[in-house]
């Protein structure tokens, strides 16, 4: 299975922000609210992961959770690839 590493997902996340002239901080604890990464951006990132791997993510698999930091986003998408 074609799977992206946490670092690769981080690169894609940086790209999403860069397209809006925003920067992704190096710190995984950075708050999404503060860097302006919102649900539309999160959805875009998920589509980019799908496009890179050529596989559909099963968005329904994991239960709802709190995604507040950069690290939360990366953890979630890494995990989603295993569902």
């Amino acid at each position, binding site marked *: 299975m074609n799977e992206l590493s946490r670092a690769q997902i981080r690169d894609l996340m940086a790209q999403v922000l860069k397209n809006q002239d925003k920067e992704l901080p190096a710190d995984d604890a950075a708050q999404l609210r503060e860097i302006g990464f919102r649900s*539309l951006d999160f959805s875009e990132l998920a589509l980019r992961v799908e496009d890179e791997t050529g596989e559909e993510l099963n968005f329904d698999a994991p239960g709802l959770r709190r995604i507040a930091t950069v690290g939360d986003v990366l953890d979630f998408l890494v995990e989603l690839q295993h569902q």
Partner: protein
Amino acid sequence: MTVATSRHPAPAHPEPAGVDNRLVVGGAALTWRSLPTPTLPDPAAVLAHSAVHALTAARQHAVHGTELLLSTASRVDAVMRNELLEAGFTVSVLDDDGVHPSAPARPRAAEPGRLWLLTSGSTGRPKRVGHTLDTLTTVRADQPDRTWLCPYAPGTYAWWQVVTLSLTQPGQHLVVVEPDELDDWPSVAAAHGVDAASGTPTFWRRTLYRDADALARVPLRQITLGGEPVDQAILDQLREVFPAARISWIYASSEVGASIVVHDGRAGFPADWLDRETPGRPTLSVRDDELVVTSPYHGAGLAGPIRTGDRVQVLDGRVLITGRLDSDEINVGGSKVSAGVVRGVLAGHPAVAWARVTGRRAPVLGRMVVAEVVLAPTDPASVDSGVPDEAALVRWCADRLPEHAVPRRIRVLTDIPVKETLKSDV
């Protein structure tokens, strides 16, 4: 099996008024009168082998009133063929050798003068809709003499519109292009003096994309668009090539007939046309974002207000028809987005020749707006051709649309997809 074509019944109708109009088919100059005169079964479902056979069947219907469903073999699959045989039609291939009939499962008496259309099937399987030459003839006022291009698939509503015009009005000539000539139609049209052409927005976009210079050499005085949502960008692009032509768009379908005709060069129609009742004219309404038409040109068995399945949006006093109701609306996290409106914005980018906008499954929001585009050909001589990348196109949209309507993923295709109906399913 081949049926002899020498004997045919006496004409049931007066000779069509346009019978001496010129027809150019596959480069050969003919007239309606000079077409072959095969005897068609009655009722017949004719699968025309090529354009000349389709015109032949239409002329025979006009002269003899034969009950007729006209199509091509590629539009009638095995299931449809059986349905037609069950419904009492003799399904007949018409080619250079004549009529090759398959007998109906349950023969029945013909209904004189009846014409059947197959809907394009954009919302499921094609349906049969009953018309007559009269209900299909929507242009009745005297027209200036024109030579029309007919690029449509035989037997479709749009095809019949051009064909009835030429059959019923002297001075309305036809140049018919076969599917394999479609990419090269401007040279055929220029050679035969085509000065009026009707096509889908996809047809026009493809033509502009492939060879705008060749298009500019066609002496067009009338340009008509229909069959798909018409956005401002395509109207403006055609205006640039043909500053003096009349550019019209038409809303028509097998079910409601030709209902809206707009000549002012703008997308949509004025909002004050809504709910205006004029005898003999269609009445246009909007119910729950859906265009509803009450028309004197309805197909048989249809009466009263018909829900068209087309989605509309009123913007700046214009009623825009944005696409099919079941595919135009994209729900992004509870916010409604019209794919047609987004498509219009993308198509308005100077480097975009064609765009398709869809919803794609996404986390959190349920759906997200995504797009495919074909970029306009660039001038190879120019070093800085300014080909936009995905980010540039996203920014273009972000400057013009609410945030949730901005397509975040935009894929670049190398050619404009098109189907036999000349539509792109956008």
